[in-house]
């Protein structure tokens, strides 16, 4: 199963995104930001790449700004 991550400006937004996604029944997990994507100390939201559009839609509806969505392939 291929995975992707959503990056956020701050942990606050990552945790909020996790909460919202879980409420919608999506299998997401907060993981450290992969070094190749950003040198932030924080976490990002990992999800199943199949659900990319669904994740984007949910976060968009919640008014959550992201710092990019990346495939972990």
């Amino acid at each position, binding site marked *: 199963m291929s995975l992707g991550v959503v990056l956020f*400006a*701050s*942990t606050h*937004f990552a*945790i909020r995104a996790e909460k919202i996604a879980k409420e919608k029944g999506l299998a997401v997990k*907060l993981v*450290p930001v992969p070094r190749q994507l950003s040198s*932030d100390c924080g*976490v990002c939201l990992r999800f199943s790449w199949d659900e990319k559009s669904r994740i984007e839609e949910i976060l968009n509806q919640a008014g959550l700004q992201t710092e990019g969505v990346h495939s972990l392939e």
Partner: protein
Amino acid sequence: MNEKLIYLDNGATSFPKPEAVIQAMTAFMREVGGNPGRSGHRLSIESGRVVFEAREKIAALFGVGDSSRVVFGQNATEAINLGLKGLLRSGDHVITSSMEHNSVMRPLRALEKEGLDLTVVPCSREGFLDPAEIQRAIKKNSRMVVLNHASNVVGTLLPLEPVGNICRNHGILFMVDAAQTAGVIPIDLEKEKIDLLAFTGHKALFGPPGTGGLVIGRRVDEKTLQPLKRGGTGSRSEFEEQPDFLPDLCESGTPNGVGLAGLRAGLEFVLGVGIEKIRDHERKLTAGLIQGLLRIPGALVYGSGDAEKQCAVVSLNLEKWVPSELSFRLDEEFGILTRVGLHCAPSAHRTIGTFPEGTVRVSMSYLNTEEEVEQTLQAINTLARKGA
């Protein structure tokens, strides 16, 4: 807590705290412990969730849609300093009331020396503010109005909504110091048109000392806000400049995770009981105390004299008694703990006519009882009859 003690200094800090607050803090220290927003491991994330949930609950309590606009700090004083020093520039005009605490007065007086234009509008001896005084004080360079929601000396409530409307009509920012009311009296940023709300976590929100913060309304452009401190935030780590977004802009350094765990539990307690029920209980205690005091020969009660128009903070004196002696005897002979003096609010005491001798302040929380109020009245009555 010693069973015999009656703690009536909740305006300074609430005590006791609900058991759930102590348990949440213990659990944080035993089982969570990580540094929120710094690392990617599970305990850092769990700690981040604690901070996040505390933020969400503050946002819910004050009618704020976006909890990232809640920034945590040590206390209301730090929050007030952030709002004032972070937004005001030399030449700006600020209006405040004569009932303010030194948490507002001292930073304003310091800024005045650096070129701030300050107007302190008078309040009545009961601590009331006529919103028309604010209207009259407005000038071309007026930038902000700062008011406490309730006086920490006499509990008198100030008219937030009328002043909020005046500020909005003139494009002036409105900052409120809710140290004595957050958790007791409903506050809604939208309804009262508040732009900046400073709160403390350790009074009526039942969290521990070392927690508080500032709610930054949507009309405040955070790009114009200078933080009090800069440093590590766990975000934008590749840059040597401070992030420009909330809450990170104003939250440098390791946050008080254990304190915020306690504050979260305190907020759950407040939201669980319901703010209306808390207010009703405190109003009943306040009314009983005021009515009882008025029946004691020689007792002087300051403030509104009306529990509807104030929070559960009552200032009093006994004729022929020095306030410090009265407070000391209440503690020594009856185990009743009050606060004496000027309560860090010299301007408020000048307004109510008790400067420089001060008053004895009785301040109650939701966890005080009518029996405790009755015992306090009996104790004061006994001392009044004995004489100083």
